[in-house]
């Protein structure tokens, strides 16, 4: 069965979704990711979905689930590179992914993870929206 590769990048994990997500693949990814977070003691998970053109409510929920599981394991999930059409679809589906951090691209997502992990207390300008 196909699996989506999970790369270790410093103390974060990088997942790049480049194929159409079907439900089995999504479930497998969730499982793999959970194991890898524990195995590598990762503090951040970057999910790059810039190649993803179609989302449904299942994928939306999967992203939310991954974020929730990662949070339990003390890793922060950042979804990066979402396409405008995908964003609109998710909003119309009523999935605003409240528990997930987002960034425009992998670079910024990485910065976000590093900033939160290394200097968690220095951010005085608390963001009420997040």
């Amino acid at each position, binding site marked *: 069965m196909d699996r989506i590769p999970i790369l270790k990048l410093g103390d974060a994990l990088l997942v790049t979704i480049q194929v159409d997500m079907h439900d089995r693949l999504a479930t497998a990814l969730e499982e793999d990711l959970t194991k890898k977070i524990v195995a590598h003691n990762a503090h951040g998970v970057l999910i790059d979905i810039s190649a993803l053109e179609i989302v449904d409510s299942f994928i939306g929920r999967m992203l939310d689930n991954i974020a929730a599981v990662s949070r339990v394991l003390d890793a922060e999930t950042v979804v990066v590179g979402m396409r405008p059409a995908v*964003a609109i679809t998710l909003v119309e589906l009523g999935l605003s992914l409240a528990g997930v951090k987002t960034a425009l691209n992998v670079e910024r997502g990485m910065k976000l993870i590093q900033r939160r992990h290394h200097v968690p207390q220095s951010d005085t300008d608390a963001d009420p929206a997040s």
Partner: protein
Amino acid sequence: MARSPLAALAQLISEQEAVILSDWFQLLAAAGALESGRIREAELRTQCGTFLKGFRMALADGSTDTNTAAYGAVRENLAEISRSRAIQGFSPTETAMFVFSLKEPVFKAVNRADKLGATEIAHLVRQLTLILDALGLYTMDVYQKSREQVIIRQQREISELSTPVVKLWDGILALPLIGTLDSERTQVVMENLLQTIVDQGAEIAIIDITGVPTVDTLTAQHLLKTVAAARLMGADCIVSGIRPQIAQTMVHLGVELNVISKATLADAFAVALKRMSKTVVSVKTVAQG
């Protein structure tokens, strides 16, 4: 009389065409068709002449149903006239009167014809009324359609004009919204904003609603959708320009905007700069420092 009564009427109109035309034209002029200066006298005369000629030829065919092919030319002519009137800004009454005012001159002409008996006249008048009423209604249909087209075109233009996304600084976008936010416009605004966020790699988008006249629960929902979509793309949104009255209405309605909101665009911009670790200082301070 071997021919149908309507064909006889056509003959009658043809004989008295000049009188009918001048009567009709006088009626139109008396009703104020020329007063506004939107149409010239010669133009109106040509329109009257063309219509009466077409009408007479259609009558010669002997049918009272205005949907038949015999009336094709008349209907086309009428459509042309009412379309141009709709664009020239004539009122519905003025446009409809063009056809309806033809009744009287034609009735007079029928009465003048000494060959006809009372029953025949009554019959003709009834049929004429039916035909002219149908044509008058057709005029109104076309008039209405033309007006609708004008409105649709203007709506499209407004929605294109009023949803610009402007760049305030590297990574800071502003979206000054003007006019009512309905779901169709929200879609356009959202698509514009999200695409610009991708194109420019923006981190912060300021949605300024100074130009939005009212904010009800639906508008708020549309705003929140836009904010949520921008957040999914990885950009933060700040809503600015909520007027005091609107803020009060929103609170009374129980509308909650769970986003950062600032009173003015300037405040929002200041917050955005601070977020990006940038600051605005006066030149003097820099020189001294």
